[in-house]
């Protein structure tokens, strides 16, 4: 800090504390942030036998007591559901009103997550058997009562459209709404400035898009986002693009335009754009050439001798 430790008075100490800890040493907000003890100390199994040495759980000697007790419970539920089904059928053919549990929007727990839940290690085979059993439970028509039990072993998938970052709309001096966005495809990069003018003219690197892209396919790609949302003549675009070839530049511009349009759209339209594949950056790049081969996939001519 450049201070001399020999001549460090109490005032200097107070000054440094005020600098280093602005809220003071004893403020509640200045307390150190610590993780929850569950995150620091991994879950361990408690001692599973009493003072006399006898284990508590009846399946202790299997080695994986929680796993086998889980399988035991699930099988009991399967048998109960089958018994109920037989009873219902014996009363007479009942129309299938009971809908099975909806599985869309969630997935089974992974093996690692199940291990965490059970606090013991299980093998791949055990995990596969568990999933098979759960699927069997779900295939029975009377499984609605076991919904909570099943949901405990399923993880909800998050809605993908919530991951989209939509920048807020900006306004320039004349009150015209505009937004900017970037796009990339292979080695081409571009930036796009969309203005809500109503002219529909797009200029790329200073030239008109008709001059810059003489090929129809590239112009189709440029107009794809506008055509998809029926906003063909609404926006005025100023784009700068560099790198790549004509096709990748068109692809980069399409992505940038779709991203720039997000600020003008509603949630439903954003979701439909995403499902049309307009918002995903294309990950395909040129595959590298490998040693011992002529190209990425092409091998050298095979000579018998």
């Amino acid at each position, binding site marked *: 800090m450049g201070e001399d430790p020999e001549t460090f008075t109490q005032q200097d100490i107070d000054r440094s504390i005020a600098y280093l800890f602005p809220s003071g040493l004893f403020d509640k907000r200045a307390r150190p942030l610590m993780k929850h003890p569950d995150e620091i100390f991994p879950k361990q199994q408690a001692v599973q036998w009493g003072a006399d040495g006898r284990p508590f759980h009846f399946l202790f000697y299997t080695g994986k007591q929680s796993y086998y007790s889980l399988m035991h419970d699930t099988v009991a539920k399967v048998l109960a559901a089958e018994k109920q089904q037989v009873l219902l059928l014996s009363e007479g053919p009942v129309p299938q009103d009971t809908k099975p549990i909806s599985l*869309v*929007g969630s*997935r*089974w727990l*992974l*093996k*690692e997550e199940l291990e965490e839940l059970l606090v013991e290690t299980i093998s791949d085979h055990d*995990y596969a058997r568990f*999933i098979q059993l759960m699927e069997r439970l779900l295939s029975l028509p009377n499984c609605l009562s076991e919904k909570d039990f099943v949901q405990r072993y399923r993880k909800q*998938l*998050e*809605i*993908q*459209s919530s991951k989209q970052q939509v920048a807020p709309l900006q306004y320039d001096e004349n009150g015209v709404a505009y937004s900017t966005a970037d796009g990339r495809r292979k080695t081409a990069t571009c930036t796009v400035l969309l203005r809500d003018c109503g002219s529909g003219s797009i200029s790329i690197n200073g030239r008109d898009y008709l001059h810059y892209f003489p*090929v*129809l*396919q590239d112009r*189709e*790609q440029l*107009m*794809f986002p506008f*055509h*998809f949302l*029926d906003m063909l003549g609404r926006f005025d675009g100023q784009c700068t693009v560099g790198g790549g070839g004509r*096709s990748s530049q*068109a*692809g980069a511009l399409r*992505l940038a335009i779709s991203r720039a349009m997000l600020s003008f759209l509603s949630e439903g339209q954003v*979701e*439909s754009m*995403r*499902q*049309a*594949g*307009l918002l*995903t*950056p*294309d*990950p*395909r*790049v040129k595959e590298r050439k490998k040693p011992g081969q002529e190209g990425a996939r092409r091998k050298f001519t095979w000579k018998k001798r």
Partner: protein
Amino acid sequence: VSASSIGRLVMLFLVRWSRYNPYYLEPEPRKELYNMPETELTTEQKEERELKAVRPIKATTNSTTSSVFNDPVLSKFVNMMMRDGEKILARGILTQTLESLKRKQVEKYHKAPQGKKAEIECNPYAIFHQALENCMPVIGLASIQKGGKFYQVPVPLTDNRRRFLAMKWMITECRDNKNRRTLMYEKLSQELLAAYSKEGNVIKRKHELHKMAESNRAYAHYRWW
């Protein structure tokens, strides 16, 4: 630890890898499907929508748009005609073919008597699709080895395979059996018109395949799938 169980289950069906994680779903670029109200959807479509809401989607290819003129069959045909990556040339040839088809049909239309005018199809896209459908084989042959010998066994074909064979025959026919001076689009339009009226070399090739399959009916039980 190896890939997740979802990836593991899907990995069984993958033959070659792609840049996308198999978790990604195919995109749907047609815009009419997104404007349908809730009432018109079947349960399968509703489930599909719910599934799409939680899964990431791949990016649409360069040749696909939401335009009415975008046709997946035509795009496939253009890609098959393409050589050395020259998409502009291939697409140009196809456009010229469709134009020449239209010209020929319109000429026929104007020359036809009043009663016959309604029967002449002037839409080149309709002619193309009908011609391809007429060329598609119903059954194919597979080479199966049994007891040291290879037999040509009649086998059912998937829709994709049938379409592929029809397009391949059309293109090879137009490349090989043409006069040095006729251009590709001319020859292609002639073949397409012939196939539309169920004549021509491509239809003949399809019939030959059918005859071979019929003659090899005895070996049909060699198929195990």
